């Protein structure tokens, strides 16, 4: 009984070791792409009622762009939308939303895109799984 367990443990250990070495070899077949060295971002889209074409749009855009962690910002009076990409380690959605709120006395809320039918190719495997696998691959890429 004990011998059998030890044998199973040994085989499992060798298999895992082999799979790990194979994964490291696979990860190093080619160098990591350049996007692997760019910091990941997050995005928020805020609907601002009464966003006019006047200078307050430009002032708001400038103010948000200067915030620490913001990588890009667009204020579009035509759609009444403010979209911001940011480094989630440096700032967060709620502080950006409250900053936008200081520029508008009217309603400021997350934009909703529900109810719009979209069409296009869909991957059967969730993208987050593929990206987690890629991150693990780049972590073991030493080239």
């Amino acid at each position: 009984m004990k011998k059998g367990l030890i044998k199973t443990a040994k085989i499992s250990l060798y298999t895992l070791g082999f799979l790990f070495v194979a994964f490291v070899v696979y990860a190093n077949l080619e160098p990591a792409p350049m996007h692997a060295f760019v910091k990941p971002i997050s995005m928020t889209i805020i609907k601002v009622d009464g966003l006019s074409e006047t200078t307050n749009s430009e002032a708001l855009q400038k103010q948000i762009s200067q915030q620490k962690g913001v990588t890009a910002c667009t204020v579009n009076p035509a759609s009444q939308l403010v979209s911001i990409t940011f480094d989630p380690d440096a700032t967060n959605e709620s502080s950006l939303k409250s900053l936008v709120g200081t520029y508008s006395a009217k309603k400021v809320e997350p934009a909703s895109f529900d109810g719009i039918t979209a069409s296009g190719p869909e991957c059967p495997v969730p993208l987050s799984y593929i990206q987690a696998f890629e991150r693990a691959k780049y972590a073991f890429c030493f080239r």
Partner: protein
Amino acid sequence: MKKAFLSLSVALVFIMSSCKKEEEAAPKSLYDRLGGVSAISAVVDQFITNVAADPNMVRTFTPLLQEVQKGNTARLTALRNNLIDQIGQASGGPQKYTGKDMVTAHKGMKITDTEFNSLVNDLVMALNKFNVPSTEQNELLGVLGGLKSQIVGQ
């Protein structure tokens, strides 16, 4: 012997210096002129925010926008990574685009001319924000514009 060694050294120095001159004279790639990966990622981020706030692009980017508003950034990350790699490769950088080909990626989306033109306009606005000179803009738009037939009407 000494003479032979001396003339060999002189010849080597001459060859090496002439190679250096040739290297110096080589024109910089569009990728280098744009400013490398950090500049391209900054332009791509600006391009993405332009698209997200563009009323003409809502239909096309709905799945991405819906997921972003729910806190799921997987599609956003995929789009950003693909754009960085695609622009980097198209401009002569070390990036290698590994995403789907343009026809497969846009199959069933039925993108119109208006939507494609809005997309190009969003990219131009992003390039203008970072003061990319018109020569570099035209070069980049020329490369990407060639993909129009593979994107529109699929």
